[in-house]
């Protein structure tokens, strides 16, 4: 069984722009799979479609279950989506309430929730941050709390939109280590190719809504001609 | 125009609170009935928007500057009852955290600025066939009316002589009303140029 199977995915915006033109790929269970491409390639759109947040044509299967209006609620219980902007992800007045939001909606009993929150904050290295307010956190801390808000739901698949963007070098390094520690299927959308080299087994290269290549990380990210033909450059470490 | 505690007598407090919270509870029930889940974050962030925008100082003629109240603006964008809930919550937050307006006088302040601005203001806007011009007229009327109501409440409470205060406060707010009117018109115009679809939001 594959974690995700996407076939012939199409999406058009309300104003007529076609953002995804028949994309197909698959993701193995517990694999870290990244989606790269120049701006406007459709990477974030793809992520939103996988979450069922936008309408699409084509087929998406999550753990063999077809994603549609009926199955979406069930499927979302296994997904953890982390937005690029943590201010979109942290909408409660304090960290505890944000991290507890998911588990509460999942129906976990009240007594277990504080343990779940504690554990999630521990994993991201922010133990004791329960009573802090999001607007008093540093950007790096906000990004980590964002991750905690979905880790508390114990998702089978994590979907991350530009997880390391705007992080200073140390926060970035810590976040990459954090990603490496969390063991589950991960889909990462990003421009940070060095991060992708360090975290992902396989990569999907998109350009103008079309799949250009899908394969092992190093096969794609060491291919200078392929990257440059698609508006990207070799990762710094190469 | 946010009346602080201590400026109204007991009777006025009871009456204004009864009216305002009556309307507010009705608005909450009405909005809850057909509530699309997306409307909750929309109302929440819009409330933050109004709360923030009210801090801005708009320069007008002769060295004066005014602040936006936004009752008509919000009702045109999100509908009269959502607007009332948002304005009321903004007033509640201002009273609680900034002591801008009192707690027991919330009824009066919500009546003057919330119900006047959002419900009556919306009616006037509709009377003018939902045009930006109508919104501007509504904005002016609601500000002068709010000042007048404020004077009446203070007058009944024996803090100021009713008739004199009524004329002087309403008169003093004619210019403020014009400012509100211009700001409301200009903001709605700006929105209609960039995202005209958002002006039909209240239909949700």
């Amino acid at each position, binding site marked *: 069984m594959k974690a995700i199977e996407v076939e012939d995915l199409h999406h058009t915006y309300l104003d007529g722009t076609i953002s995804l033109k028949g994309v197909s790929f698959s993701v193995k269970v517990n694999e870290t799979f990244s989606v790269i491409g120049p701006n406007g390639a459709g990477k974030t759109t793809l992520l939103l479609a996988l979450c069922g947040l936008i309408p699409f044509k084509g087929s998406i299967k999550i753990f063999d279950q077809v994603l549609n209006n009926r199955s979406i609620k069930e499927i*979302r219980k296994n997904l953890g989506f982390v937005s690029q902007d943590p201010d979109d992800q942290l909408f*409660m007045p304090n960290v505890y309430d944000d991290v507890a939001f998911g588990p509460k909606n999942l129906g976990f009993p009240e007594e277990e929730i504080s343990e779940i929150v504690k554990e999630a904050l521990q994993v991201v290295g922010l133990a004791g941050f329960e009573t802090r307010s999001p607007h008093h956190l540093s950007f790096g801390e906000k990004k980590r709390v964002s991750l905690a808000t979905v880790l508390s739901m114990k998702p089978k698949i994590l979907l991350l939109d530009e997880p390391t963007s705007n992080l200073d070098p140390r926060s970035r390094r810590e976040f990459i280590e954090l990603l490496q520690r969390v063991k589950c299927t991960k889909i990462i959308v990003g421009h940070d190719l060095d991060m992708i080299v360090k975290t992902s087994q396989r990569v999907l290269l998109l350009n103008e809504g079309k799949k250009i290549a899908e394969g092992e990380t190093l096969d794609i990210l060491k291919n200078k001609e392929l990257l440059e033909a698609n508006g990207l450059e070799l990762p710094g470490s190469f | 125009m946010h009346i602080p*505690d201590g400026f109204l007598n007991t009777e006025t407090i009871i009456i204004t609170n009864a009216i305002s919270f009556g309307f507010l509870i009705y608005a*909450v029930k009405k909005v809850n009935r057909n509530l699309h889940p997306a409307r909750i*974050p929309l109302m*929440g962030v819009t409330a933050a928007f109004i709360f923030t925008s009210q801090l801005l100082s708009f320069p007008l003629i002769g060295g004066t500057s005014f602040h936006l109240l936004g009752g008509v603006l919000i009702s045109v964008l999100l509908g009269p009852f959502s607007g009332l809930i948002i304005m009321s919550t903004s007033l509640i937050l201002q009273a609680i955290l900034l002591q801008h307006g009192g707690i027991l006088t919330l009824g009066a302040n919500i009546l003057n600025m919330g119900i006047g601005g959002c419900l009556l203001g919306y009616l006037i806007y509709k009377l003018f066939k939902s045009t930006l011009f109508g919104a501007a007229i509504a904005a002016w009327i609601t500000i002068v009316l709010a000042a007048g109501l404020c004077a009446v409440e203070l007058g009944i409470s024996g803090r100021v002589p009713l008739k004199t205060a009524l004329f002087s406060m309403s008169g003093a707010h004619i210019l403020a009303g014009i400012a509100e009117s*211009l700001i409301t018109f200009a903001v709605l115009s700006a929105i209609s140029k*960039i995202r005209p679809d958002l002006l039909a939001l209240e239909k949700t």
Partner: protein
Amino acid sequence: MKHFYLDKYSYLDSPVHRIRPVIKIVASFAFLIYVIISPEKWWNYSIGFLGLLFLIFISKIPFSFVVKRTMVILPFLILVIIFIPFFNENGIKIAGLTFIKSFLSIITLILLTSTTKFSELLRALSSLGVPRIIILILSFMYRYFFVLVDELEKMLRAVKLRSFKNNRFKTFSILANIVGVLFIRSYERSERVYNAMSMRGFDGEIKKL
């Protein structure tokens, strides 16, 4: 705007900070009502005033902060003072009593909100029966105020860097445009927040905070 606090001093620790929020809210409200309905005797207010002063002292809230906040009633106070002559000999008494009641109310509110974290205040209000939609809106308002102020400041700064003349009309229309853009940004943000909420199981049912 990272260091701007709406609920300043609520992170301190004192005996007052440790009192349960529900008790503080009910007591504050009861006191406000008492101030309004009690007979207008000076000694009544003096006891209340001394009590509040004592609480402020042990709560570690600076007096200067309290005094500064009281200035918020100045416009209305001036209004009443202007009209003193209309009430002949009662005028000063009215103005004085009004000021005292106002002052007592402000100190009470400052005590309440400066010794209670906002999220706890909301939780307490919810348990006292305030409708959930109002609690949620208050919560979002508090949370996104700082985000929007940041966005507003960025836009204002950008305009300042590009304008060289001081034209009142232009400033007015630029500000109105900024407010319009701010609304659009708020709307778009609310859509993204809704996405985040849906992904974490939100289906419209406002569960207990």
